[in-house]
């Protein structure tokens, strides 16, 4: 190794040391973009907090429960709105591809403010407290969700194939957009089917 080689090694080592010494300030200036995928999760779990034993055969005045949750992977604190809707089989579902929510009016809602990489969950207890039967159709007239009595009318025809009146308890995820300052449908929804019996 001649003198010039020594000099090159010495200059390179010094520059590396200088970069290390300057790293606290460089960290303030240089920001590496995150390649992590940004998305939100919406889920419904059964009463024992697992993906089984979901309420299905539901009788009038019988209490049932599920857990609804949201997981935030959007990289910042997010403001969510979860609409609870009640539909029969013929009423339209949301269209996730076209970002269109279900046209049904919500019967209940939750609002959640979730930090990045954190989850929010709510225990939802529901009781169908009033139904009326007309020949081959049923009307659910009243429901109690988390202690709040809600009056509405939702009709379902008797399904001979599955031998029952079928309804879906639907949860739709909406997200607050900071730019436009409005809540928009986040293309995520989950639901559980209920076979409602009058007695």
């Amino acid at each position, binding site marked *: 190794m001649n003198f010039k080689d020594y000099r090159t090694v*010495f200059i390179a080592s010094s520059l590396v040391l*200088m970069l290390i010494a300057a790293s*606290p300030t*460089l960290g303030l200036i240089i920001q590496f973009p995150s390649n992590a995928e940004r998305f939100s999760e919406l889920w419904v779990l059964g009463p024992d907090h697992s993906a089984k034993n979901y309420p299905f055969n539901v009788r009038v005045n019988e209490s049932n429960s599920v857990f609804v949750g949201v997981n935030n992977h959007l990289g*910042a*604190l997010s*403001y969510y709105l979860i609409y609870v809707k009640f539909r029969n089989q013929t009423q339209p579902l949301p269209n996730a591809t076209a970002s269109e929510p279900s046209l049904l009016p919500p019967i209940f809602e939750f609002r959640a*403010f979730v930090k990045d990489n954190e989850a929010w969950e709510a225990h939802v207890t529901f009781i169908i407290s009033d139904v009326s039967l007309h020949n081959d159709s049923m009307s659910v007239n009243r429901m109690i969700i988390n202690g*709040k009595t809600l009056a509405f009318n939702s009709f379902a025809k008797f399904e001979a194939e599955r031998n029952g009146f079928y309804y879906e308890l639907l949860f739709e995820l909406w997200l607050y957009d900071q730019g436009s*300052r409005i809540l928009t449908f986040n293309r995520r929804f989950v639901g559980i089917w209920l076979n409602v019996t009058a007695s």
Partner: protein
Amino acid sequence: MTSFDIKRSTILVIILIIFTIQFRFHTASAITDAEEAASALANAERTVGEAYNATVNADQTGANISTLLTKLSDAGDELSAAETAYRQGDFNSTVTLARISSQVAEGVKADASQLGLEALGARYMNNWFKMVVSIVAVVTVGLGSFFIWRRFKKRHYQRVLNAKTEAVSHEL
């Protein structure tokens, strides 16, 4: 037409007028209730949105937003309850709940601004500290390298010179 008939007709007309006025008053009052409830809801929606934006800004400056989030969730819960009450036609509850939501959200906005400013000040100081530490470290490394190199160079030349002197003396 007898005087009795006239009297009866007059009474009937008066009753009809009273009913009409009362009905109009009730309708107008219901509309006012609905309008007031809708306005309170819109105000609460806007305030909660602003409180959320303020909290996000505070979070981005590095503030501890745990307390703010608890309050913001309370405001959101009240707003949800107000929306549900409105859908059920309970306008009095709507107004009460929406106002509570707005008040809580206003508090969050104020607290978020304060926390954000404090966090920004702390961050500014921290950044300054980092910059000073970096500058001192770079200068130290630079000067250290320079002196070490000078010493190394001197020793190197000295060694070369000694080697040459030894070679010359051997030749002699």
